[in-house]
């Protein structure tokens, strides 16, 4: 039989089975659990590499399983899917290492890592989904598998955060379901195809299509934390740092943004969406989110909350890039899907390190922290500059292409948005850096752990340093083969220039 048919399924299985195994593990089996975790992550990375190679040579792996009569469960490793799946599998490996270090000695680790793996399974499923119902399936699975991670600490606060997360995401999910079924009753198919699969539907369906678009985008916007659907995100910060990192950089928020990309490009097709007059409002929503998120971030003293609001703003760049509806802007949006992930996860790792090593949670406590933890803060600095959009870090590339794309599409106002948000980014990141590097350290840190001569445990230090390097690399080597940029351009060509 043909192995290729099973590769995407194996990618899913690599983390799903890991998760199920780990659930069964006794709490004290630390070593075995660690081995399993890393084994799963590495296996997935290898398989993804295989698919990537295939994709690079124009061969896209696909798994098909019957789900309903004339409706299949499809996993296809198309270019867009590969972009996201590569990001999430790389970052999963790093986050796993980080989480192992972070949770050392804390209770219920089997449960934690079990759901952790399920969460990544769902993300990869979202990435590989080849039609809307498969996407929906993994999208809901993502909701369910993240909930236990958010309430992991079992405090009353955690329970409430989990509740509001569910209220938001499940409402979103049912909107998505409704839109999906409705679309299915009209088209009779849900297969993702470049430039959309609704050509068959003429003007008489205009209203229905607009309604469906709104349903789908609203359903996805909840996870993508588009204003005003972002309410759950800051609360979810009660979760342990690795979870926040995963939520913001790869899993939940990204899944929402990725879904929006899918809907616009592979369900409606960007031209049709523009014709239906849907991209304009979408761009408006994105703009509002960008500005609003940055403004709120300015006034947070809690580091993780500031990063959370910065996510609200940054993820909307992706949506904006999509909504501008031009090839170059598309490149900007798609490449930011990866770049934002690299930079934001760096920042969250660093925040976690500060909290875990020094007990520092607030920005006002960060004076001179750079001297105590130089490597961590170096990584943090890289991430911040990336967010601001300073070259040579990856963020610059994103904003550059977004700007070019906006001009090419004749939407100059976007430049203003970019400039304004960059200023705001600077306004809420530079003070942190200034405190960290140029203020004298206090006599005692709030709650310091001793790691001997090292600034912190290597498992906590390695991941942020690597991601920071990747962020720089993605910026410097943007034009190299396999760079996110190259890949994003390939996707854009498929969407725009295909006959």
């Amino acid at each position, binding site marked *: 039989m043909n192995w290729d048919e099973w590769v995407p399924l194996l990618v899913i299985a690599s983390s799903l089975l890991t998760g199920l195994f780990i659930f069964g593990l006794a709490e004290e089996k630390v070593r075995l659990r660690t081995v399993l975790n890393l084994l799963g992550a590495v296996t997935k990375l290898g398989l993804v590499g295989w698919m990537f190679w295939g994709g690079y040579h124009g061969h896209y792996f696909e798994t098909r399983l019957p789900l309903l*009569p004339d409706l299949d469960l499809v996993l296809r490793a198309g270019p867009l899917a590969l972009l996201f799946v590569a990001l999430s599998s790389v970052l999963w490996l790093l986050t796993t290492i980080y989480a192992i270090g972070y949770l050392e000695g804390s209770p219920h680790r089997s449960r934690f890592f079990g759901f952790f793996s399920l969460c990544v399974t769902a993300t990869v499923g979202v990435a590989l989904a080849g039609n809307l119902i498969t996407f929906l*399936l993994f999208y809901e699975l993502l909701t*369910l598998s993240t909930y236990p991670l958010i309430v*992991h600490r079992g405090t*009353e606060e955690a329970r409430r955060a*989990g509740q509001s997360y569910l209220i938001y995401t*499940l409402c979103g999910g049912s909107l998505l379901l409704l839109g999906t*079924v409705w679309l299915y*009753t009209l088209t009779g198919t849900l297969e993702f195809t470049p430039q959309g699969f609704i050509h068959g539907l003429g003007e008489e369906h205009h209203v229905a299509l607009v309604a469906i678009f709104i349903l789908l985008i609203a359903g996805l916007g909840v996870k993508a934390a588009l204003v005003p659907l972002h309410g759950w995100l800051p609360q979810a910060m009660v979760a342990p740092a690795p979870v926040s990192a995963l939520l913001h950089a790869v899993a939940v928020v990204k899944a929402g943004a990725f879904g929006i990309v899918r809907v616009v490009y592979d369900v409606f097709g960007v031209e049709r969406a523009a014709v239906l007059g849907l991209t304009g409002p979408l761009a408006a929503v994105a703009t509002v989110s960008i500005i609003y998120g940055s403004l709120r971030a300015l006034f947070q003293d809690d580091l993780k909350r500031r990063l959370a609001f910065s996510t609200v703003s940054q993820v909307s760049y992706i949506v904006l890039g999509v909504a501008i509806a031009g090839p170059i802007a598309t490149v900007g949006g798609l490449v930011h899907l990866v770049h934002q992930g690299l930079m934001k996860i760096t920042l969250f790792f660093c925040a976690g390190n500060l909290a875990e090593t020094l007990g520092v949670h607030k920005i006002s406590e960060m004076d001179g922290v750079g001297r105590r933890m130089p490597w961590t803060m170096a990584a943090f600095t890289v991430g911040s500059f990336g967010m601001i959009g300073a070259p040579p870090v990856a963020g610059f590339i994103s904003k550059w292409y977004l700007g070019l794309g906006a001009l090419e599409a004749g939407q100059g106002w976007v430049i203003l948005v970019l400039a304004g948000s960059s200023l705001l980014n600077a306004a809420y990141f530079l003070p942190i850096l200034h405190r960290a590097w140029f203020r004298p350290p206090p006599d005692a840190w709030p709650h310091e752990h001793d790691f001997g001569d090292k600034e912190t445990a290597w498992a906590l230090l390695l991941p942020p340093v690597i991601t920071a390097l990747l962020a720089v690399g993605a910026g410097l080597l943007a034009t190299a083969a396999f760079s996110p940029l190259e890949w994003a351009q390939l996707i854009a060509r498929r969407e725009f220039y295909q006959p």
Partner: protein
Amino acid sequence: MGDALFNIPWAVILILLPLVGGMTCFLWPKVAKTLGLFTSSVIVLSVVGLAWKMIGNGIYRHAVGGWSSPLGIELYADGLSLLMLAMAALVGLAISLYSTAYFEQSLSLRFWPLWLFLLAALNALFLSADIFNLYVTLELIGLAAVALTALSGGRDALSGAMRYLLATLLGSLAYLFGVVLLYHGFGSVDIAILAQRVEATPIVWAALGLMSAGLVLKTALFPLHFWLPPAHASAPAPVSAVLSALVVKASFYILLRLWLDIFGPLGAEGVADLLGLLGAAAVLWGSLQALRQTRLKLLIAYSTVAQIGYLFLAFPLAVGDGVAAWSAAAYLALSHALAKAAMFLVAGNLLRFGGHDRIADLDRVVERLPITVTAFALAGVSIMGLPPSGGFIGKWLLLEAALVQGRWDLVVVMMVGGLMAAGYIFKVLGYAFTQADAPHESRPVPLSMEWAALLLAIAAILVGLMATEILPLVGIGDPFGTGGVKP
């Protein structure tokens, strides 16, 4: 060899074996547990055998006593009956496994005969094509269910059982009156023959009214659900599971049959819409009540009220070609049976574990009974209609039908109902993670009880991935062929 197996009268075994088992358990209580477990296992095998036979030969017919209808009674099984039989067999096996550990000696010897007779009655009902014979099986089920409800004694159980008995007897009498009218109107009690003979006469309308009312009462459709929560919440856990999962489905099955073969084709849109309306009301009201409960078993019982509502949404949606809507209803019935049984077993475990079922102080059971909580979570996924689960498939098909018909009112009801379900499921799960104010000592829960619940929940998930295998089976004999009201 294969032929020999193929020709075993599986359907007859389904009826006679549990009867023999029940009587044996009554005569020699010592063997009860073993025999009960054995019987349930053989029943599962027999259903498989019957399915195998029907895949080969299509629908199953057997003229009892060699007297074909109208003179005699005929056993009849098509895809729909098969689905119901499979549902009863699976849930039954899990219940039997659970009960071997659940009941202490004195109750155990009372439980098993009643339970096996109930199984026999259910199988007989799903296999009958004769509306008077259906009446007898219905009464058999009713009496068994009431006796089981009262099993543990105590104020709530007894008065709950009493109310249940009155309701179920009233329902059966109304149904019987309908049978009488149909017989005297058309000279037969065989469904197939009636299907050919009926035309829209006053007799038929009277029969339709009486039978629908009676069966709706027995199925506990809003607003005739008043008897269900007290009974289901006060019965022993495995009994609650049987009541919610199987017993209410029995009367629903009869209603569905009558509707598909006899009343539907007469074009009773009015009745269909009324049933749909009540169903919608049940979804909303039941979910609302479930959200308000502070006791787990009552919450689950009201969730049953809500879930029954979904089944009735199929009636107005089946206009014209009703296959999609009816398949949805059948699928929902199956997955609800599995999931809801799992939930009641979970409730039983938590009750055994902590000595109470107050939701607000479940006290970190997620660490202390992981298997049980997993079972509840998986069952919850199906009840909420989230993918991948049987509940999702049913919801999807039903939504599809509703959107094709442009019934936005029902669409909204389904959406809201799903969210409310999520509300009360996670109300429970949220507390499973938190610490109770007063940590209490706990009793151990036998593994068989934990696994029985988990296996049912897993089954509820799996049926969501096997739609392409199950739906064709349900299609055997084209039960929904004439389905739905003629437009």
